[in-house]
């Protein structure tokens, strides 16, 4: 093992690390924002309302992320409408394609977590809120969503970790994220062990940080569930 090469290429890895974090943070942000309306609609009892969001969730969860990414990155160029429109400025670039695919993917998974959490809302809480005279928007904002977010938190931490792993796909479509950096170092110096293990260690550290953040969030938002002392 020769980690000399890795040290001389450390700036490349740090550049990759920055892109990985950026892609993860942005796709989580967009995905979460998208997942709230989708999750709420999917939890609706009416078949007319929940049909489309459930279809979206089913497709996103049922097909591999790499296929979704290729559909956007390679696939969209098939349509002249896309190529001639202003959208082409974005979809021409690997960066926006990756971000778009990742955001929709995590939106699907997050919406499903949210849907499950909303369906588990205790009926008594909803009844009490209605008895207090809340309309459905207030009910959603004050009662249903806050408790659904709390219930969904452990599953969501897993989803964020899976999304971190998913961002490695950006390296497949020419982007220089952590995996892309490892690929470049490997092809330049032919050191597969050193290059990919280094990337792996970076990913491992990121995973630990995510786990730590969610642990912190759980102690904060699940404080009322902790066993009482004394």
């Amino acid at each position: 093992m020769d980690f000399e090469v890795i040290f001389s290429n450390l700036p490349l890895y740090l550049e990759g690390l920055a892109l990985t974090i950026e892609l993860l943070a942005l796709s989580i942000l967009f995905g979460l924002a998208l997942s709230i309306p989708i999750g709420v609609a999917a939890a609706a009892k009416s078949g007319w309302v929940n049909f489309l969001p459930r279809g979206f969730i089913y497709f996103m969860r049922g097909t591999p992320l790499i296929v979704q990414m290729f559909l956007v990155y390679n696939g969209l160029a098939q349509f002249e409408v896309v190529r001639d429109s202003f959208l082409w400025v974005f979809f021409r670039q690997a960066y926006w394609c990756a971000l778009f695919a990742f955001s929709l993917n995590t939106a699907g998974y997050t919406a499903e977590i949210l849907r499950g959490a909303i369906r588990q809302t205790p009926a008594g809480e909803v009844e009490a809120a209605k008895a207090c005279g809340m309309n459905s928007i207030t009910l959603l904002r004050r009662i249903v969503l806050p408790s659904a977010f709390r219930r969904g938190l452990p599953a969501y931490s897993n989803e964020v970790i899976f999304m971190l792993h998913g961002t490695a796909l950006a390296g497949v479509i020419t982007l220089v994220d952590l995996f892309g950096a490892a690929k470049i170092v490997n092809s330049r110096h032919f050191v597969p062990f050193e290059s990919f293990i280094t990337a792996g260690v970076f990913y491992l550290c990121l995973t630990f940080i995510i786990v730590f953040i969610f642990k912190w969030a759980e102690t904060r938002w699940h404080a009322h569930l902790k066993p009482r002392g004394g």
Partner: protein
Amino acid sequence: MSQVIDYLPFILKGMVLTVEVALLSLLIAVLLGIAAAAARLSGSVISRTVSGVYTTIIRGIPDLVLLTLIFFGGQIMVNNLGKSMGWGYIDISPFIAGVLTLGFIFGAYMGETFRGAILAVSKGEIEAGYAYGMRPVQVFVRITLPAMVRHALPGFGNNWLVLVKSTALVSVIGLQDMVFNAGAAGGSTRQPFSFYLLVAFLFLIITAVSNSGLKWLDRRYSAGVRQG
């Protein structure tokens, strides 16, 4: 559309390979999973540490990174080993690398599932087995294993569905599965979207078929349980 139909056999050939990779990895994952669960449940500090490190690595490192590491790194390792043993050149095919990596990754997830399932088997049943004078191996094979299947099935099903989707990654190391073939067909017909969409639907079909199979298994293994 007609071009999609022309290339359909080509894509379906890739689908067969996808299913082969998935089933073989599943076999490895189940064997590793049982071993990992047994190690986790045993009192020994060493085996608990090893399986703990195993799970952490799998949960912390992207499957794609592990796959390329095993594909490129495994090649060097086998070559060095071959040189010192005098075997000559041995080629690590993307198929072998893919199956081993996926089996290794999902072995960790299966291990967690099986561990939970074994813990869910009622102590009384196991004690009764011992009371009849069965040996530990007999108790495991005749009582614990069949009784844990019911508890393991939901987690097992989830792992399988995730595994099927992960097989798409082997196209990155050049294995000609259906994603790879869709890329080739899409490139030569200039209709990449149509082919990737077709592959997406084929994945949904595999999922749907697996779901009905899992449901059947669930009914079979819950036969003796009263449902509320």
